[in-house]
């Protein structure tokens, strides 16, 4: 009896969002009960925030054409890690000397800061993230054009 009622409830897809919200709520309560979780001090991608740097918050250190100290999981896979993050084009370099806010314009000027972790050692993540955006855009534009 109860099983058939449950299955009738589940089979209606209008109830699924409520069901999922319920599952999330149960898990969230369990999660709060089991706090605190241990924090690992040995983080793979450590980051020091230096608010006085003009490249804040993307400063990862290093001077151009010299190797910055970058932690990676598999150093043998990234033999040139540390060279990317230090490089700025002359324009970006001038900008970082003129203003203390060059780090907030990461995409606004050519040759800005290339974060080593984001674009080099974890480059596949960046590729998949943009793929998600492109697919969502393809669906949206297709639906938009279908109406006309």
């Amino acid at each position, binding site marked *: 009896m109860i099983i058939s009622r449950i299955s009738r409830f*589940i*089979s*209606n*897809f*209008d109830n*699924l*969002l409520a*069901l*999922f*919200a319920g*599952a*999330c709520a149960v*898990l969230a309560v*369990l*999660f709060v009960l*089991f706090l605190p*979780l*241990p*924090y*690992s*001090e*040995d*983080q*793979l991608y450590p980051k020091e925030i230096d608010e006085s740097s003009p490249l804040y918050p993307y400063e990862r250190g290093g001077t151009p054409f010299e190797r910055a100290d970058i932690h*990676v*999981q*598999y150093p043998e*896979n*990234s033999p040139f890690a540390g060279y990317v993050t230090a490089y700025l084009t002359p324009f970006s370099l001038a900008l970082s000397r003129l203003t203390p806010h060059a780090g907030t314009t990461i995409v606004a000027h050519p040759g800005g800061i290339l974060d080593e972790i984001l674009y*080099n*050692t*974890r*480059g*596949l*993540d960046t590729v*998949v*993230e943009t*793929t*998600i955006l492109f*697919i*969502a855009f*393809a*669906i949206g534009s*297709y*639906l938009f054009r*279908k109406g006309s």
Partner: protein
Amino acid sequence: MIGIGGQPLFILPFGDIVLYFTPFTLTLFIFALVFTVLVIISKPERQIDIVFGGDAYLAKEISISDMKFRRFMAIACGLASMGAMVTGDIFDFALFTSLVGICNVGIVAAVKSRHVQNAAYQYGLVAMSATVPLFAGAAIVAATTGTLSILQLALPGATKVPLLVKALLTLGVMGEGMAPFYAAKAEMFRAPGAPYVIMCSLSSLLIFLRVIEVVLTV
């Protein structure tokens, strides 16, 4: 590396993200690859409704452009499933899984059936909210263990991921198309256009098998 997957046969490094092919993930990868090739080369079905009690029947006509879009989405979904099968990084796995969810909505986006669209809408809402536990799980894995690489987490001396974090990851993947949230997807299959719509079902099955491997390994 211990676990249900077996020893990696082949490792494909992309910097810190290492794709590994164990007998388990290789099998799933080949499965997704074969089905993607089938989607590329096959022609879509033509659905026919037969009227009971008479000899009338209706053939559903679907335009070529609809079919092209559906095939494109099915291929994208196949590629995303392949990536999710072999990736060796928890965050990357979460990204590929959410890509699978978006592609599933895209496959049925062009269907002119109110019922299918309603189901796809509900599925889309659940898949969207499922990204919260999915990415939260990945983030807490990084916080509690300090790394995201499955190969590192599988080492005998590595810090174990707390059980509740595994539950978060699993709930996130369940929202992308596991039972009982699979019900909306089952309604989506009523859309004409096999084999493209079957990709919805197949990708769910594959990411379900993979998340079990991930959760048991880390």
